[in-house]
C-alpha cells in the first residue's frame, strides 16, 4: 500500500502543473455540487419553516355548507360541528388512524391588564393542541388535562400579546402568574408561549371546557384537529378522508359524498408535496453538479491518457521485469482516484466553507412576504450523508476516469514498449 502511494506521489510530482490544472476542474465540480445542494437545502428549510406551524400528520376539520340535497333537506344548509363529532373522531370507528384529538371553540374578547387592553381571540383548546400546532413555551406551562377537567380559568398568552399588555421594556415573562381580565372574568396566566410571525398572535389559549362554559357555546365546536397514524401513502390519506367525511356528513344528515358539508385540511398532502418538491429540487441540483463535475472527470481521464502515453516505455520495462497487467492497471487507477479524491476534497471543503459564509450572510437576511418575515436561507449546508455520497461519487468518477487509460497501459506489450525508445 505504501509503495503504491510512493509511486503515485512520484508520478504526480513530475507533473505538478498539469495535475493541478486538471485537479482544479474536479475541485470546481465538487465545489458547485456542495454549494448548490447546500443553498437548495437552505431554501427548502426556509419553506418548511415558513409553512410549518403544525405537525405534518395533523388534520383540521371545520363546518361548511351542504352542496347537495339529501334526506329531504335542501342544499346550502350550514353544518356546525359539535361535541358528538369530537367523540366520533376519537371513538371506536377511527381508532386505527386517529391518535390525539383536540377541538377548539373560540370567541373574540378584550383582554386587560392594569391600564392596558388589547382585543384578542380566546381559543378554547385541548392539551394536544400544543403538539399539533408545535407551540413552544417561553415560560410556564401549556393548558393541561386538569385545566380541562376542572374548567379552570387559566390562559396561555403568546409573547407578543403579553408584550402588548405590558409597558415597553418589561419582559413578557413578568406576566406569568398574574391575572388578566378576559371580558369580565379574571384568568390566571399559566404560560407564555413563543411567538412566531406565521400565526395570529392575538390568539390566547384557554381550556376548551372553560371557554365553552363561560361563553355558553352549548354543543358547538369551532374546529376539530387530530393527528393521524398509519397513513403512509397519499392513497391511504385520501381513503381515510373520504371515509371520515362520509361518517361526519351522515351525523349531520348531509350526503356522504358531499365535498363541502365539512372541510377537511389534511397537512399530510402538504407534507407529501413538500417532500416531492424537495426531492425534485435536490435531484435537479445533483444533476447540475454532476455535469459540472463531468468536465473535471474528462480532464483527469485526459491527463491519465497522456501519462500512459509518456510512460509506455517505462511500463514496458516494468512488465519485462515481472509486472503483471493488473499491477499496472492498479497503478493508473489509483493515481486517477488519488488525484480526483484529493482535489475533490479541496472542493468539498471550500464548498462547505462557502455554505457557512452563506449562512452568516444570506442566512441572516429576511424577506418580507405579506407582512411576514421569512429568512431566505435557513441553515444552508449539506449533511454528512451528502459528504459521504460525494466521496463515493469521487471514487467512482476517479475509477472511471482511470479505467480506459489503465486498460491501455496494461495492454502495453513489453517488446513494443522496449522498442519505443
Amino acid at each position, binding site marked *: 500500500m*505504501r*509503495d503504491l502511494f510512493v509511486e503515485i506521489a*512520484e508520478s504526480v510530482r*513530475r507533473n505538478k502543473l498539469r495535475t493541478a490544472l486538471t485537479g482544479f476542474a474536479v475541485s470546481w465540480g465538487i465545489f458547485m455540487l456542495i454549494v448548490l445542494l447546500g443553498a437548495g437545502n437552505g431554501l427548502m428549510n426556509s419553506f418548511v419553516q415558513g409553512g410549518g406551524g403544525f405537525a405534518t400528520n395533523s388534520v383540521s376539520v371545520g363546518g361548511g355548507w351542504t352542496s347537495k340535497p339529501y334526506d329531504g333537506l335542501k342544499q346550502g344548509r350550514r353544518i356546525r360541528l359539535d361535541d358528538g363529532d369530537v367523540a366520533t373522531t376519537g371513538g371506536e370507528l377511527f381508532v386505527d388512524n386517529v391518535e390525539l384529538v383536540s377541538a377548539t371553540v373560540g370567541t373574540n374578547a378584550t383582554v386587560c391588564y392594569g391600564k392596558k387592553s388589547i382585543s384578542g381571540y380566546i381559543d378554547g383548546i385541548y392539551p394536544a393542541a400544543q403538539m399539533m400546532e408545535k407551540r413552544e413555551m417561553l415560560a410556564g406551562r401549556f393548558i393541561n388535562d386538569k385545566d380541562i377537567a376542572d374548567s379552570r380559568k387559566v390562559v396561555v398568552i403568546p409573547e407578543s400579546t403579553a408584550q402588548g399588555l405590558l409597558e415597553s421594556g418589561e419582559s413578557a415573562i413578568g406576566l406569568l402568574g398574574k391575572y388578566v381580565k378576559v371580558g369580565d372574568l379574571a384568568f390566571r396566566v399559566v404560560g407564555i408561549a413563543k411567538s412566531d410571525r406565521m400565526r395570529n398572535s392575538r390568539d390566547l389559549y384557554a381550556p376548551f371546557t372553560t371557554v365553552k362554559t363561560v361563553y355558553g357555546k352549548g354543543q358547538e365546536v369551532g374546529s376539530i384537529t387530530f393527528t393521524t397514524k398509519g397513513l403512509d401513502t397519499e392513497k391511504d390519506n385520501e381513503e381515510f378522508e373520504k371515509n371520515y367525511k362520509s361518517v361526519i356528513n351522515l351525523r349531520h344528515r348531509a350526503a356522504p359524498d358531499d365535498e363541502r358539508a365539512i372541510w377537511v385540511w389534511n397537512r399530510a398532502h402538504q407534507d407529501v408535496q413538500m417532500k416531492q418538491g424537495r426531492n425534485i429540487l435536490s435531484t435537479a441540483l445533483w444533476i447540475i453538479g454532476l455535469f459540472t463535475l463531468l468536465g473535471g472527470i474528462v480532464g483527469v481521464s485526459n491527463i491519465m491518457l497522456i501519462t500512459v502515453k509518456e510512460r509506455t*516505455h*517505462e511500463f514496458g*520495462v*516494468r*512488465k*519485462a*521485469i*515481472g*509486472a*503483471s*497487467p*493488473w*499491477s499496472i492497471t492498479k497503478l493508473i487507477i489509483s493515481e486517477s482516484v488519488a488525484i480526483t479524491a484529493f482535489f475533490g476534497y479541496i472542493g468539498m471543503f471550500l464548498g462547505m466553507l462557502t455554505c457557512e459564509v452563506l449562512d452568516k450572510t444570506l442566512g441572516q437576511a429576511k424577506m418580507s412576504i405579506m407582512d411576514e418575515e421569512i429568512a431566505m436561507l435557513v441553515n444552508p449546508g449539506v449533511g454528512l450523508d451528502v459528504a459521504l455520497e460525494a466521496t463515493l461519487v469521487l471514487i467512482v468518477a476517479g475509477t472511471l476516469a482511470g479505467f480506459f487509460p489503465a486498460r491501455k497501459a496494461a495492454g502495453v*506489450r*513489453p*517488446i513494443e514498449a*522496449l522498442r519505443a*525508445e
Partner: protein
Amino acid sequence: MLIELKDVNKTYNNGQPLHVLKGINLGIDSGEFVSIMGASGSGKSTLLNILGILDNYDTGEYHIDGRLIKNLSEKQAAAYRNKMIGFIFQSFNLIGFKTAVENVELPLFYQGVNRRKRHELAMQYLDRLGLAGWAGHYPNEMSGGQKQRVAIARALITNPKIILADEPTGALDSKTSEEVMQLLGELNRQDKVTIIVVTHESGVANCTDKIVHIKDGVIGRIEDNREHHSSMFGTQTIMK
C-alpha cells in the same frame, strides 16, 4: 538441459507474412555462457524475445527447466519473467525517476518482498558491483557503464535461472564494453549464472564460451569458444 527449443517457428503477419524463425533447435545447459550472433534481420532479436517470454511463437516447443512455455496468459508470463529471467538491455532501461537502489529493488517489489528486505538485498547487489556509493543517485547522474551495472544488479537480484543480455554493450564505449563483458564472465564463472548474450559484434561474442550463429532464421554453426580466440575486441570488427 536448462533451455530447450524444439523446431520453433515464428511468422510475423504484418501485411506480407514474414517467416522470421524457421525451425530453431537449440539446447543450453545450466551454467553456460553463450552468445547468439547474427546480422540485423537474422531473427536473433525475435529469438531473444521468445527466450525472454516477451513474445509468442507459432509452432514448436520451448522448455525452461523442463517447463513448457507456451500460450501463457499475460499474468503467468509476467510471473515467469520475474522469477526465471533477468534482462540486460542495450539502452539499460532503468526507470529515470527512481534511484539506482530503487531500480534494483523493482523485481522484488513485483514478487511482493517487503520494503526493508528488498532494500537490504538491493544494497548487497549494488555493493557487489561496486556501486554502493551510488545507490541514491538517479540514472541520469551516472555514466553508461555504471547504469549497465545497475541494470545487471537488477537482473541478478531475483536469482534468475537465465540472464538474457540484448546487445549489452551497444551503448557503451569499447573500454566499458570490455569491463561489462568481463563482469558477465565473472558472474558466470563464480556464480554459475547461465548467461545468453545476443549481439552482432564478434568482439562481444568472443568473450563468451559458446557462439551460436544465426542467419536468415536458422541456426548455423555452433562454435565452441572456450579458448576465446574467435576474434578479439576491436579486431576484425569496426568498434566504436
